[in-house]
């Protein structure tokens, strides 16, 4: 039964990632449900391991897109994982907190996602394996209107997807 559940989870994750049909993409499922991870957290080659152990996200200061020391060390881990698991690609999602206008926040989220992408490429990940997208303030994970929540929403999340180009 457990295996079945896992299989379903995995199926959806893969479908999301591999499917080129646009309608399949639903940002909330990727971000929010925890469905983005798959496999066992104890299996170092699983996306779930990447999500939970390596750390799939980095946080940013208000209106900034530069990477803190802490963020860089998380990204070092991400780069290593990605290089070790060449079957996977990644989409980097940039986000902003709600304290900004919609268009500007889209552009700001793009800056953040791009900062992560550039860093990973510098570390040796092939640029062709990485895509970026910004959600601006459309997909907060924390919903209070205080800095505690804002801090978690100003993020770039690396979402693993399987490479089925071959």
């Amino acid at each position, binding site marked *: 039964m457990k295996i079945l559940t896992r*299989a*379903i989870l*995995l*199926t*959806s994750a*893969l*479908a999301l990632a*591999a*499917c080129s*049909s646009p*309608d*399949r993409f639903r940002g909330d499922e990727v971000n929010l449900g925890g469905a983005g991870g*798959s*496999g066992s957290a104890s*299996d170092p*080659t*699983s996306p779930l391991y990447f999500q939970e152990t390596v750390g799939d996200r980095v946080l940013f200061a208000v209106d900034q897109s530069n990477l803190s020391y802490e963020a860089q060390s998380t990204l070092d881990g991400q780069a290593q994982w990605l290089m070790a698991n060449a*079957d996977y690609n990644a989409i980097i999602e940039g986000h902003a907190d709600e304290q900004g206008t919609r268009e500007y926040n889209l552009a700001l989220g793009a800056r953040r996602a791009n900062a992560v992408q550039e860093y990973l490429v510098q570390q040796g990940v092939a640029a062709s394996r990485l895509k970026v997208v910004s959600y601006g303030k459309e997909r907060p994970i924390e919903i209070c209107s205080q800095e505690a929540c804002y801090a978690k929403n100003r993020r770039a999340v690396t979402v693993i997807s*399987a490479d*089925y180009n071959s």
Partner: protein
Amino acid sequence: MNTGQYISGIGHVGLIAWLLLGNVFDPAPEPFEVTEVAVISPEEYERIVGAQQPPSPVTEAPQPPQPEAEPEPQPEQPRPPTPPERPQPEPAPETPPQDDSPDVSKVQPPEPAEVTDEPPQIAPPPQEEVVDAPKEADRPQPRPSQRVAPEPVAPPPPETKPDDVVREEVRKDAAGDVKKDESEATAPEEAAKEIVTEAQEPPARAPVTSLRPKTRPPVPEKVAEKPAEKPAAKPETKPAAKPEEKPAAPSDDMRSAIEKAVADAAAGASSPADTADAPAGPPLTAGEKDSLRVAVQKCWNTGSLSSDALRTTVVVEVRLSEDGKPDAGSIRMTSSSGGSADSARQAFEAARRAIIRCGASGFKLPKDKYAQWRDIEMTFNPEKMRIK
């Protein structure tokens, strides 16, 4: 490696399942409700749009006879039948051109059940105001009044609501026999000195002080209107003499000369010595003029004027009767500046309303100086009213 293959295998199977199932459940790109709701056929739309313009004007719908605005209301009688000498206009719709008037159409496509004309009232009442109450407030603080007047009026005590129908107007207007029953004092409507937007709203409540604005310093009366002093004899000689005295002046054509003569004669005529039937008296004092100005100001409402009309200064003439009431028919615009003909018309209409409304019970002017104020030229300059 094995794991990878499992993942891959399960993934592919799952993916196929997903695609199949997904397609089963995924409707066509346009959601059902939308296609249902929003569509009217292009031809239909074309027809509608094409048809709408010109909304056929009521073909010169003949003006129904109107009783002249009279101080005496005649509410008790049944409405007087239309005077026979003025033919009763046929109601407009009978005229043929309107029947041709194209359909304004079903602009809205047939509505689905989901949509009602009046969405269920989720929203607070339309006049909802500030969302975030100032935190310091220990009691609810109203926004500053939306009404702007030269003299701020503090909000009335909560019990006395500004009346919907402004009773004071009724009293003013009353030529005697309008209802007497509203003796209850109505609070003057709250007014701010200027528009306070939500953004500027002070933490404390709106302007509380009702300091009177400074009245204009009494300017020593400059009697520009060369009237009374002139000896009566002068007019007789002057007009004739003038053209001669300035032979060089090329502008002295017949027209201007006549105008001058007329003006001078008029000036002479009004001098007290000659005017037997109207007491002229000395010129109005600055205070008297000022109170007239203030009286008109109170009714000059620029709130509904376009921004163009708010750039238009109009000069309006009015004749008053001896009891200080304006003769509505005498009110006319003599000149305007700063705006188009249209905006001058709006500005004039607002000025006219001000004069008629505030003059309805007669402006308070000294009777013995009637000749001085029988004809008044008022300049309505909205410069200060533009953005308050």
